[in-house]
């Protein structure tokens, strides 16, 4: 009984670990570049040094730093001014190719943002 119970627990744990490991890696190289978001029309630029910029068509926008952990893309916007301000977005990348990306913001999985590389 105890063995069976232990095996069962192990089996569930294995399954759980398997699902837990469903987070998939995305190719960071594909992220580097300038993207246009179809949803809001802004242009996102990711540089390979971890910096980037989100701006409108007249390049008016905000600089940021980014970090990609597997499919979790963290963006920290930096202030254009002198007073520190928070500005963090957590994205989950659903699909990333060299020319196309789909992602949603954490907590708002029902809105998918689509990007095309420029």
């Amino acid at each position, binding site marked *: 009984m105890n063995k069976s119970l232990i095996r069962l627990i192990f089996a569930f744990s294995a399954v759980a670990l398997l699902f837990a490991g469903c987070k998939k890696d995305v190719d960071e190289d594909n992220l580097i570049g300038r993207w246009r978001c179809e949803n*809001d029309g*802004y242009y996102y630029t990711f540089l390979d040094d971890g910096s980037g910029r*989100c*701006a*409108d068509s007249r390049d*008016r*926008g*905000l600089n940021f730093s980014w970090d990609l952990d597997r499919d*979790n893309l963290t963006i920290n*916007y930096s*202030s*254009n*001014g*002198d*007073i*520190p*301000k*928070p*500005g*963090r*977005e*957590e994205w989950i990348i659903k699909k990333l190719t060299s020319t196309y990306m789909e992602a949603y*913001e*954490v*907590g*708002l999985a*029902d809105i998918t943002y689509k990007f095309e590389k420029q």
Partner: protein
Amino acid sequence: MNRKAKKALKITGITLGSILGLIIIAVLLVCWTVFTPGRLTKVANKAIDKYAPCKVDLERVDLTLVKTYPFLAFRLNGLLVYDEMETSPSDTLLYIKEFTVTTNLKALLKEKKIILTNMLLDNVQANMFVDAAGHSNIDFLTSGEKKEKETDDSSDLDIYADLQKITIDDINASYIDLKSGTKANLNNLGINLKGLLNYDSLDANINAKIAGVKASIKNDSTDIDARLNDIKLKGTLAKHKDNVTCGITFDLKNTNASLGEMKAAINDLKLALNNLSCTLGKEGLGNLKTDLNLTVSDIKYANQGMQANTNHFSVKAGQVAFNDNNLDLKGLSIGSRDIDFEMSDTVGSKTSATIDNLQLDVNGNLKTDMSVINTSVNTSINGIGFKIDGESPMAISSPSISLKADALIDKDDIALTPELSTPSINVNIGGDELVPDWSLSLFAPLTTNKSFNRFDVLNGSNLNVNGQKIGFAANGTLGGSSVVKGNASVKASNLDIDKLVSMIPDKYKNVLDGIDVHGILGLDVSVKGAVKQDGMQLDKASANVSLARLDAGLKDSIFANANKLTAKVQYPSQIAVDPNRQTADVYLNADDLKLSLIDSTNIDAALRDFAFSASVVGLTDTITEMSAQADVAFSHLEATMDTISGSLDNTSISATMTPVDGTVAFMARAAFDQLEAAMGQNMGASLSSTSVVAMAQYDQTKDDILLKWNPNIKFTLDEGSLDMLEEPVEIDNLDVDFTLGHFNINDCRVSMGNSDIMFWGDVYNIGAFIEKTGLLTGELFLESDHVDVTQLMGWFSGMGNEETQEAVQEAADKIEEGADTITASPFIVPKGIDLTLYTNLAEIKYNDHLFNNVGGDVTIKDGVAVLQELGFSSDAAEMQLTAIYKTPSPQDDPFIELDFHLLDIDINELISLIPSVDSIVPMLKSFSGHANFHLAAETYLENNMPIMSTLLGAAAIEGKDLVVLDGDVFNGIKRKLLMSKKAENKIDSIDVELQVIRNKVTLYPFRIHMDRYTAIVDGRHFINKDLDCKYTVSLIETPLPIRLGVKVSGSLNEIAASPIKHIRIIRPQYKKLYNPEKRSDTDEMVMGIKDHILETLKGNVR
């Protein structure tokens, strides 16, 4: 008649007299010895042959007693003296038809005295001739062999005269001088003298007449011709001892004279000297007295295009007395009628003058050496006309002119008192009537000396033209180093400006175009100086001008009125003393002066007791070398401009101008006791005792007006008020000093209703900032004990609405004109400025909130405006605000950011203070209690609206033990909600974080926990056209068996229209969010963001 002719006549007379004497002697001798005419004639001819220097025939000599008894008469007949000069036109030098002389026979016989009693000379012809070589027909009298002298009278006879009658009749003479071209003829001279003539006395009646006299001199240089006709002389003559009396009348008719082109003619001349008396003794003539009556008619004179005529000329004298070099004139009257004068110049212009009547009355006395003269002359001229024809015709006419003149000469002193007057004079020049029948009078008493090198026109002298009287005086010297040197003054007290203006000829009235002046003018001008060959030298001058009832206008735009206005110019200055430069003072005073400026904006000003004075040094210097001081004062000023009105009391302004280093430095002091000003019905100002001290240094090389004047101003105000709000803005004190280097606000205290403000500080480098060579720096301080913001906002609310409406209308107009967007100009923070305003407000009242210790700094530095850490504390909260506004350049978009914190604030107060919070967190108004509120945001601006791509912000609300619902209500429903008995209407804590990035507003999940219930709220909305949103409420703990959530999504308009349609039941979310041990990765990331937001915002709290 030349000297040679005179000499010849003299010699001739002497000769004839000598011959006559010899003849008489001879006749008497012959008569004594030989009584027969034949014998007497023979004896006489022998004597003539023996003694006469020329050929002489004597027709007959006789003595008679019968015809002339009791006198013995000696008579010559037919005495002919031949002219032996070959070139002489006549062979007769002298012919006497009859010469008779009688003597007292008794005295002759008894006393051997020849006493002549009668003499008759009849029909005499004398001809004198001088040839072209200058030889005269009487030269034989002075040249050639000299005849033997008259032998001495060996007899004892003495010759005496006791004449009773002298008759000379038909005397004719001619004189011809070919050398000098002189011709003279005397025709029919007759003299009849009856009376008594002896050595002791004379008492006779005289009748003399000449039919005509002709004389002419014509040679290369002289052309003289004169004709006198019908000359008559009649009179009485008496002399007893030294006393002489006589009465003479002299008539002359048809007299003509010419000298070259000059011609003169007199038709009739009568001279009467009646009652003439004098003494004639060894000491000569004395005590001469006579009256005089001279009348001349038809005098004509012509010379070189000039003609002068008068019908009548008379001289009458009641008495002329001469004694011991003293000449007295009484009742001397000179008159003339119908005087015509006409003169033509070489170009044909004709000048003519007419006088109907001229009367000159003279009284006075004088010494013949002119050492003393005391005369009074009255001249009256009637019917005057004067004309000049030609290109510039001129005509002057007057019905009458009166000239009175008293003259007194005493040794070297001369005093004249002329007084000229006319009731009307008309002057017309070039067809323009310059003087239209004005009355005119001139009174100018003056003293001088015989050398005329000094003069004194005495006070009281005046000129009266058309009723406008001007007094004047002058004194000084003539000659020497100056043409004229001395003093002069002009005075007038009541000149009617209307009349003066009307006296300006129409031709020159265009000078006054646009100028309209009325009033009474007074003048008092005095000058001391000299006129020299090289110009005028002014030593002293003063001019006083007074204007009464002044009413003036200039081009219908500037008007001035004054009951009394005086102006004075003083040269040299009595204030600014500088012996090496020209100085002057100017004064202007007005009791009541009103000024109006009529233009697009009308300005009216009224001044009382206005006084202006100025002193200038260096009148002839350039402006940069000139010094000046000016003072202005008035007791009261009232002025209006459009809807602005104001008044000033007891104002004084003083200003100085001095040259400094090639520029001009100015200093001005202004002070007044009271200023009242108003704009419309709602704005006004009142200032009490105020003083301004301003200095400036003018540098024309600078462009900016401040740099050009380099002002240094000190302004002090004790008390004032601005009446522009519901209650006056009271200025308790204002004390500022301004220079381009340092603007120092020493003190500024203002009270506005319940609020008071103190303001002071320093601003540096204004000049360098303007010149763009330096940074404008400064520190300003604003302090207040109490500011009632609610009151102030109530007052200021609505102010400027008109401008706002105008701006809206302007924008609408632009859109109508097709503009797609309206571009609003942003406020540009200037560069080159480093200014900081430190605020410290002890107490601010806003609505019912009272804030304490409100303080912070406002810094403007190089295009950036920073409101730094503005904070306060109150019963409701403590606040901290930092705001930054940047305008890097006009081409760049402005950038604004702020950091705002309300700490420990009552939620109700928070919503009251910031109503928009209720919109962001709608359920907040359901709570009561204290919370912390943090907000930070930034964005670039376009048209004063955020550029969404640059919008970054976050807000957080922290609260603990928040009360929900009223306690009684809660107790009533908590059982229905299956809450425990111990349940309280409190939420343990709330931590709301929201973040704005670009157009996304994210409300991160927060928990609301009460008793057995726990809910999680989160959401997002987009700042877009539809304001799309999605909010969820998840009930994660409940005593109920099921746990559900609610999602509201869609656009706000759609949700508002049909809320049920947009609400969906969902599975609760974030169930483990507040269970750290069970959080998912997503929960961790959410909490990470929430922590990041809160910590970052709280990190800005000081």
